């Protein structure tokens, strides 16, 4: 099997599609890495649910101000032209369609755009956070994920089996093996690892891939 992309490389690939001037929310955890890979010459402004717009990198260890955190409760810094606001205004930005892109992690994503990223089932303590708002608010909802689970099972599926976060909300998926758009309730393959065949990719995908005339090479720098 071909060398799959690392998480950093998936994040890098997603970052390349963020338009200059975009307002962006990155889900907590792995999607936060996307911010590091903004292409030069393009500026994105990052939003975090707890009421900060235009935050920057994490502070050096020991320099944290714990009143200045992101939705993942990690310490952040501000960029010039930042703004603070309360939670209702923050989710007005989300729900009101003011974000250009939200990039989230996921457990499963279905060919109809359904997303399941908040619960692995009835066991344990359920926790949803802001994901159910983000999937309906941003103009473009993208997912970054390993193409398969740790056990090798497809994360891109015909129908989600886990509890849904949102219905029909995802439009683009960046995985460790491919980039896909969700169009007309189907996964359309846009890019794949050049070393991997379509058949190999199809075998690792839980729904049928639509194959356009042109399929690009998914290549990312060493990171």
């Amino acid at each position, binding site marked *: 099997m071909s060398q799959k992309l690392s998480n950093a490389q998936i994040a890098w690939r997603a970052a390349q599609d963020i338009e200059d001037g975009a307002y962006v929310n990155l889900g907590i955890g792995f999607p936060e890495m996307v911010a590091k890979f903004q292409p030069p010459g393009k500026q994105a402004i990052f939003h975090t649910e707890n009421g900060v717009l235009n935050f920057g990198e994490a502070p050096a260890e020991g320099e944290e101000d714990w009143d200045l955190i992101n939705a993942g409760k990690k310490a952040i810094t501000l960029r*010039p032209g930042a703004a603070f606001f309360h939670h209702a205004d923050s989710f007005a930005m989300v729900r*009101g369609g003011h974000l250009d892109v939200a990039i989230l992690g996921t457990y499963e994503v279905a060919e109809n755009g359904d997303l399941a990223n908040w619960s692995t089932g009835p066991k344990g303590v359920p926790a949803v956070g802001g994901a159910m708002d983000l999937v309906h608010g941003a103009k473009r909802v993208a997912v970054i994920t390993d193409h398969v689970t740790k056990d090798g099972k497809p994360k891109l599926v015909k129908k989600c089996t886990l509890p849904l976060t949102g219905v029909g909300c995802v439009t683009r998926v960046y995985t460790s093996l491919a980039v896909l758009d969700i169009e007309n309730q189907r996964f359309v393959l846009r890019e794949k690892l050049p070393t991997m065949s379509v058949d190999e990719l199809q075998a690792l995908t839980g729904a049928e891939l639509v194959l356009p005339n042109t399929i690009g090479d998914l290549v990312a720098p060493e990171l």
Partner: protein
Amino acid sequence: MNARNMREKDVLMDKTVPDLNSAVAGIEDGMVVMVGGFGGSGAPIELIHALIDRFKATGSPKNLTVVNNNAGNGRIGIAAMIDAGMVAKMICSFPRSADPRAFTEKYLAGEIGLELVPQGTLAERIRAGGAGIPAFYTPASYGTDVAKGKPVAEFDGKHYVQERWLKADVAILKAELADTLGNLTYRKAARNFSPLMAAAAARTVVQATRIVKPGDIDPEQVITPGIFVDAVVEVADAKQEEALMRQGVAYA
């Protein structure tokens, strides 16, 4: 006024536009236009008058639906838009203000439409438009003529009227400070409807008394975050609608 002394990597985005004409360029026939201000406080007179200038020169934009608490005073601002014949309909709470003759004449002649909305409902509908809330319930207007035809519901034994969000194609607003990313502050009571309209409009255009560079407004003191703003133009010597009206100025 510009960001030249910032490192370029920090700030590429710049929402400033060079003049009033550019600022109102995207406003087209038939659009819904939210206009900030309550009386003279916060009224973006120069943006309005730039729009009137364009209408006089080109015949466009016309057939506008204008959202504001009032329906214009004297012969300036929104009243001058009405006088000029650009406005098909007002959505407002109080079309009888100090000197409402522009609206009154056209309304009584059947030449302009009116959607009358209680002031708090107007504010909340605009807020809902910006916040992605398609409908909400309010006690205001329950049992009155204003609620006729609207769905009602009972919650905890009390009656409420269902109201829909209100959005606009464009908002034109007046701010005190704007930075080049569109973060805004307002002067005294001049904020009134403007932070709500900024969020409810597809495109938000702001005249600011002063444009500063990102970082010059304390992030704790930003009233309208730049995410809601598309274009800012500096109008350092902005006129006050109330003062113009008292001087008897006519624009249309």
